[in-house]
């Protein structure tokens, strides 16, 4: 077999995060010579999913790091190792994201035929956390009505509130219409919740419902963004079947898509090397010579890599907990004919939680619960992914949120926590950079729902590789590869 150095590569892709992997998928039928490497021993980069052992190894590398996307990582096991299954029975997503049914990511996976190797599960109900006013009573979760039918059947809202909510949902469905534009454009850049209050007379409770649906971590979004996100949610509802607006890939989310996309790259002839990074590079007029950490020296016409530096101070704190309960109540289908959901989302509205010092935490906290049907934990357990904007108190607030959440969902007993992974995730540049023969993709967005903006730089990079051919090639559209005839039989 020829050695890597004998080939002049059309492109070397470094990193197997979602973006680089989708790029490999997009180029998989072009006949380009592609070398795809990753300094990590696993696929997915910041989108990876880990077994317990892998999570522990990852924490060891990120425990005392103060720069880079991930930092301040630690693991606690409240019960020792009791109750935990074997390491590979778990698949903990580093950056779990739900994917709205209308996301272009899904339509690209369909048109590129890659979707066939991914199992998609429904994201079910959205809840808000309601603290108990009576110390004898436990806190509760209130289901967020997110369609007009939901609102109609909702029993806890006043008639007036229902009418306001109905009016708003109808408004959003046509928010780019002329009459609607006239209403919201004057508020476009002002806070979304003020708009809800002024134009729709929503009280604080209703505003919380709407803000929950946006999954905004700082709760401070503009009216323009807020409307677009609610629109995405509403138009995604029912798109792939009744009762759900978003999906989640089984076995670890985005990580699974990255693996499937890389496999498509390999099937198309790309060469894959994990555990191999770039030691040094030498740029000449027409190519770059890369010294790889494996000892190989390769030449390529283009290098595509991801930005691993963070910009600004924006950061989110995460807490991933394995709990010893199936938490069945979170994963019920509420609409006839709906697939059984494997994911649910609960928001602690801004101000619902307090810091150790007794001050209220001014941002929302989200708990995204995954049932064992996601394949991320064994039956009888669940995974809770908590996230909140980083502040000096956010890790404490997350712990409190976890306790309160478990109190609200537990029946007689509060479910046991078996394993907790804590870390912080920063945000990098949002723009791609092309300089000469090097194309740098932006950093992964730490948002809770996949943002289609992440797809644009991939297409740009694809265009750079394709050059003149880009204009007569359809992006991410391939015929089926499996044409094996099933009629033949071996007997």
């Amino acid at each position, binding site marked *: *077999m020829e050695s890597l150095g004998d080939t002049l590569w059309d492109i070397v892709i470094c990193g197997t995060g979602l973006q680089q992997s989708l790029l490999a998928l997009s180029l998989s039928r072009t006949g380009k010579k592609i070398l795809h490497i990753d300094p990590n021993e696993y696929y997915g980069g910041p989108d990876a999913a880990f077994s317990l052992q892998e999570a522990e190894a990852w924490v060891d590398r990120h425990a005392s790091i103060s720069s880079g996307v991930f930092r301040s990582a630690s693991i606690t096991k409240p019960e020792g190792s009791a109750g935990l299954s074997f390491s590979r029975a778990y698949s903990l997503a580093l950056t779990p994201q739900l994917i709205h049914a209308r996301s272009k990511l899904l339509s690209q996976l369909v048109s590129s035929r890659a979707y066939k190797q991914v*199992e998609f*599960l429904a994201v079910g109900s959205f809840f808000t956390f309601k603290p108990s006013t009576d110390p004898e009573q436990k806190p509760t979760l209130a289901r967020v009505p997110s369609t007009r039918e939901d609102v109609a059947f909702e029993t806890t809202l006043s008639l007036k509130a229902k009418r306001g909510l109905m009016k708003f949902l109808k408004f959003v469905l046509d928010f780019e219409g002329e009459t609607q534009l006239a209403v919201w454009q004057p508020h476009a850049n002002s806070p979304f919740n003020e708009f809800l209050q002024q134009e729709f007379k929503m009280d604080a409770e209703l505003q919380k419902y709407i803000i929950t649906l946006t999954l905004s971590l700082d709760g401070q979004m503009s009216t323009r963004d807020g409307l677009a996100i609610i629109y995405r949610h509403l138009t995604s509802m029912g798109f792939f079947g009744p009762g759900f607006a978003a999906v989640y890939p089984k076995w670890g989310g985005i990580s699974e898509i990255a693996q499937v996309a890389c496999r498509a790259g390999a*099937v198309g*002839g790309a060469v894959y090397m*994990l555990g*191999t990074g770039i030691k040094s590079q030498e740029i000449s007029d027409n190519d770059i010579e890369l010294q790889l950490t494996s000892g190989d020296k390769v030449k390529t016409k283009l290098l595509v890599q991801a930005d691993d530096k963070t910009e600004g101070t924006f950061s989110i704190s995460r807490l991933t907990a394995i709990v010893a309960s199936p938490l069945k109540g979170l994963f019920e289908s509420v609409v006839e*004919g709906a697939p059984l959901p494997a994911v649910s989302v609960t928001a602690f509205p801004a101000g619902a939680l307090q810091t150790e010092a007794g001050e209220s935490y001014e941002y929302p906290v989200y708990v995204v619960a995954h049932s064992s049907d996601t394949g991320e934990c064994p039956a009888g357990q669940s995974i809770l992914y908590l996230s909140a904007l980083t502040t000096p108190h956010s890790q404490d607030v997350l712990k409190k949120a976890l306790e309160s959440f478990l109190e609200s969902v537990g029946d007689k007993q509060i479910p046991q926590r078996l394993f907790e992974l804590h870390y912080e995730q920063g945000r990098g540049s949002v723009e791609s950079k092309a300089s000469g023969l090097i194309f740098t993709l932006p950093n992964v967005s730490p948002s809770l729902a996949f943002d289609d903006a992440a797809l644009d730089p991939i297409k740009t990079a694809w265009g750079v590789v394709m050059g003149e051919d880009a204009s007569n090639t359809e992006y991410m559209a391939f015929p089926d590869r499996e044409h*094996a005839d099933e009629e033949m039989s071996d007997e």
Partner: protein
Amino acid sequence: MADSAGAPRPSSSVKLVLLGEAAVGKSSLVLRFVNNDFQENKEPTIGAAFLTQKCNLPQRTIKFEIWDTAGQERFASLAPMYYRNAQAALVVYDLTKPTSLIKAKHWVAELQRQASPGIVIALVGNKLDLTSDNAGTNGEGEAAGGDEDARKVSTEEAKTYAEEEGLLFFETSAKTGYNVTEVFTAIANAIPETSLKSARGPGAAGAAGRSEEQRVNLNGPRDPNAKEGCAC
């Protein structure tokens, strides 16, 4: 529960993964099985995500979904999704190349680490046509030259190892087709009835039957009660 009672000959999908050193003939074995074809000097694998082939047993039909490594084994870069839910594996070595058996043992260990506990593994020594005990060959003018026996791995050695590890064991020739169908039939027979019930899902999980009602079909809205979960 008893979901397939009454059907004349139930059909189940089985994911089978291929493993083994480069150039031992993994793809050739599959091409022989699927298309009854053999290509001399075949290029390293490009172009097939997986191939399917049915295997009819007296009691049931097994539809193999055969996954090729697509070269990702070359630098030990197979993804977890490759092993996921695999119910069978074909670990291939070249019986004219001792190092390829060592590599095969490595892959068996990897399968025991990464794959579902109940996976059926077949160890296959390929290129029997290059040996002097080449049953069923009609190969003339071999590249190796004349009647020379190129065998470097004895049947005994590989067989003993296979028995120790509880693997099925065969020596084959993808070139002549010798023993190829037999490998797949033996695998089909060895797959426990219980692991066929819900086709997918990690061996032990008690969630059998649920996975179909949950799976979201991205390819246009369809009857949600449609039973067939297979993507082909």
